[in-house]
């Protein structure tokens, strides 16, 4: 897709996201902030699934690393700056993804998935074992951060902060991440990843060093998800081992599939929709997990190419009808 064609879509949506907190209540705005954060995580995840053909079942690990990096910076270094948090999360997730990636990219298909899952479970169990460092199941608290060096006004309502200052902060990082990822998947490197996805043998025989490219994709993917983790902690106020646990990896997979992992925007739409669905399901019934399961199964069965894939199909059909 060309730059122009993309901007026709992207600009109005960006404007909408900008004015939203001014016209809706704080609560749905905060929910959207959660959705945007998850969108960054799933966007990272999908560089592997959609573009490189590798299904990671351990992306909770990188999200968790980002979140815990922030919590550790608060606890041990008394850092308050959100920029430093993001930076710290990037460094931490580079270290962890480099290590995990080194091991995982030697494998593909189910072996890759299982390995990513196993490694993420190692981190999860470490978070429990070293409870005096990680706070165990109680987790670690993270107070309201300084944004661009500015602390929140004395006595400012936390909810107001999250729905305004922090929302815009998340939105800005989200826009940067989307633009970067868009560039990456449309770069020669991004094309090479798709080549590897489609035919590993042929990719090798046009001179692409597939393991190296997979490794770089793995790094980029993990770092995006790590950044999301860092943004998520102040929203949540607390990080617990839950976000390192495998069901959370499963949610990330689901968001990508729900939105449509073969489309660039699929993960974004999937993450935002999933987040609202989950929130309302939780409020609706204590059996929310079962309800979510049913909703998701139905959605995937009726929309196999995800929300975005199906929307594109409908749009194409409608256009053809109108053209007649």
């Amino acid at each position, binding site marked *: 897709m*060309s*730059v122009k064609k993309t901007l026709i879509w992207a600009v109005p949506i960006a404007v909408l996201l900008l004015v939203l907190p001014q016209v809706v209540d704080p609560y749905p705005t905060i929910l959207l902030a959660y959705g945007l954060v998850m969108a960054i995580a799933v966007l990272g995840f999908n560089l592997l699934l959609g573009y490189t053909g590798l299904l990671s079942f351990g992306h909770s690990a990188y999200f968790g690393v980002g979140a815990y990096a922030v919590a550790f910076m608060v606890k041990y270094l008394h850092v308050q700056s959100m920029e430093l948090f993001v930076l710290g999360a990037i460094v931490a997730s580079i270290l962890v993804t480099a290590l995990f990636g080194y091991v995982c990219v030697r494998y593909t298909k189910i072996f890759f998935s299982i390995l990513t899952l196993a490694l993420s479970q190692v981190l999860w169990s470490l978070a429990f074992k070293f409870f005096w460092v990680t706070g165990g199941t109680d987790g670690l608290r993270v107070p309201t951060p300084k944004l661009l060096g500015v602390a929140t006004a004395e006595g400012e309502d936390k909810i107001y902060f999250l729905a305004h200052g922090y929302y815009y902060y998340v939105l800005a990082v989200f826009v940067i991440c989307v633009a*970067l990822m868009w*560039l*990456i998947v*449309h*770069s*020669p*490197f*991004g*094309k*090479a990843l*798709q*080549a590897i*996805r*489609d*035919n590993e*043998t*042929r*990719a*090798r*025989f*046009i*001179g*692409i*060093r597939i393991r190296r*490219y997979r490794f*770089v994709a793995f790094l*980029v993917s993990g770092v995006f998800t790590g950044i999301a983790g860092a943004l998520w902690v102040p929203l949540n106020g607390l990080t617990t081992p839950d976000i390192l646990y495998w069901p959370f990896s499963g949610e990330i997979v689901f968001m990508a599939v729900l939105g449509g992992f073969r489309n660039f925007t699929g993960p974004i739409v999937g993450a935002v929709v999933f987040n609202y669905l989950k929130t309302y399901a939780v409020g609706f019934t204590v059996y929310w997990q079962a309800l979510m399961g049913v909703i998701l199964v139905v959605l995937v069965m009726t929309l196999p190419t995800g929300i975005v894939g199906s929307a594109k199909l409908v749009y194409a059909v409608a256009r053809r009808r109108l053209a007649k």
Partner: protein
Amino acid sequence: MNLLETAKLTKYFGDTHAVDKVDFTIGEGEVLSLIGSNGAGKTSLVNLISGLILPDSGQIRFRGEDITKENVHARIKAGIARSFQIVNLFDELTLLDNVALSIFSREGMTRRLFSLADRQQAVWQEAHDILRQFGLELKAEVLAGGISQGERKLLDVAVAYALKPRLLFLDEPTSGVSTREKAPIMDVISSIVRAQKITAVVIEHDMDIIFKYSDRIVVMHQGEILASGAPEAIRNDERVKDAVFGPTHA
């Protein structure tokens, strides 16, 4: 100096002597046909030289350098490219992308994460030119998974050709297509190979095609090289007749 030389190159699969102490040479600029009945070891020989599999013993020298232990990437950099008997394409990408990827890779551009592929005018221009040469231009924007078998065979060759190799191996470029389609495919390929003065090794079954297009013919049988020579000499070689065409062949 020969472009490529193998010395006692050997690969066994269990009891199968797929390639058995083969001394095989290719001269600069030659268009050579590699023939032999099914299972003779032709594909295995190409697999060894291109680096898909490693030999049990023996040596491969390319332009005087020992490349026996080099990986695929190094061999491609050195200028050895190949197509596949069973096509290997990027099915979810367009024909144009399939060819452009070879060019991006050849130019070392695939390492670029933060630049738009679309902006590389020269690459797309070249990719279009190559598709045109192979008669695939009209399908440039079609996904490789959605074209005919004959077109896929041609695209597979085009992807290898786009690497601008010094030595090009074509493993049965017309297998799996109808007899009617074989000649046009070989016409396209051979005219490109001749025009660009590419050194090429073509594995082929169709004798009419082989005698028409090759400078030299190398015959393999049960992992060994049985004969090598000009088309006329091979045509009249009794041992070749027996081994390749069967004893009853007139």
